[in-house]
């Protein structure tokens, strides 16, 4: 099974990267670009075949390592 994880900054947390990209898109002439937020994306191959168990396992990975839950949220999709 493969887990696809999106890690995004919590609302209100400053995102300097997103801001810089927003500025650059403007300079490149893209109109109508509002806020840009940057996050991370992970794909993790799992041996686990049980959906529920895999979800639990990936959740634990996110809490313990993959996301910094002080400032980030995560979202797991299993495929």
């Amino acid at each position, binding site marked *: 099974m493969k887990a696809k994880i999106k890690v995004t900054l919590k609302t209100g947390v400053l995102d*300097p*990267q997103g801001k*810089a*990209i927003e500025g*650059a898109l403007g*300079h*490149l002439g893209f109109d109508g670009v509002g806020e840009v937020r*940057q996050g991370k994306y992970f794909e993790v191959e799992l041996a686990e075949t049980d959906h529920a168990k895999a979800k639990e396992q990936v959740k634990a990975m996110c809490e313990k390592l993959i996301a910094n839950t002080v400032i980030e949220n995560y979202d797991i999709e299993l495929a």
Partner: protein
Amino acid sequence: MKSAVVVFPGINRERDMMLALETVTGSKPVSVWHTETELPKVDLVVVPGGFSYGDYLRCGAIAARSPIMQDIRAKALKGLKVLGVCNGFQIITEAGLLPGVLVRNKDLRFVCRQVKLKVENNQTFFTNRMQKGAIVSCPVAHGEGNYICDAETLKRLEAENRVVFRYAEGTNPNGALNDIAGIMNESGSVIGMMPHPENMIEPLHGRTDCRPLFESLLAA
């Protein structure tokens, strides 16, 4: 020898570079702001080190798309000498002046230390005062200096003698392919390197190994 040093927001080694250019070549470079669209008439353009746009998105990515880079690209194709150091190397690579990409150091940490550089090609505008195969001390200071490219490109770089500097004696600080520390384009008009020769040119720096690199600019 007239030179220009390009400054983007977040670049921070422009003073070091200007000091080195002035100290060794005897003439003061002009500083060019990134929003300008045309370079002044110079013999050499240097894109210095630093963290242009905070290294956000990818190192050098945002700077590579700024107005001045268009003119640099156009003139480099016509033979204007361009030197990119550290972030400058990342910028000109992102701008397509050199092949490949610089990615995160293998151990994921920023590293500032002295390495040994082997001069692989001494027929360039930045190495002509060096012996081929000479080994010099030079500092590095970067978090993303791990040079990678596809196998085809690597083969060409090596075959065409376009690897200008290689990390010697197991001092590769970042995991770069084939220990590549610096490369040039096909015509030799553009050189990019991760190490900071501008920080090793006077006794205060502990050694002066990199002074001849800058002296090479006078001969070129």
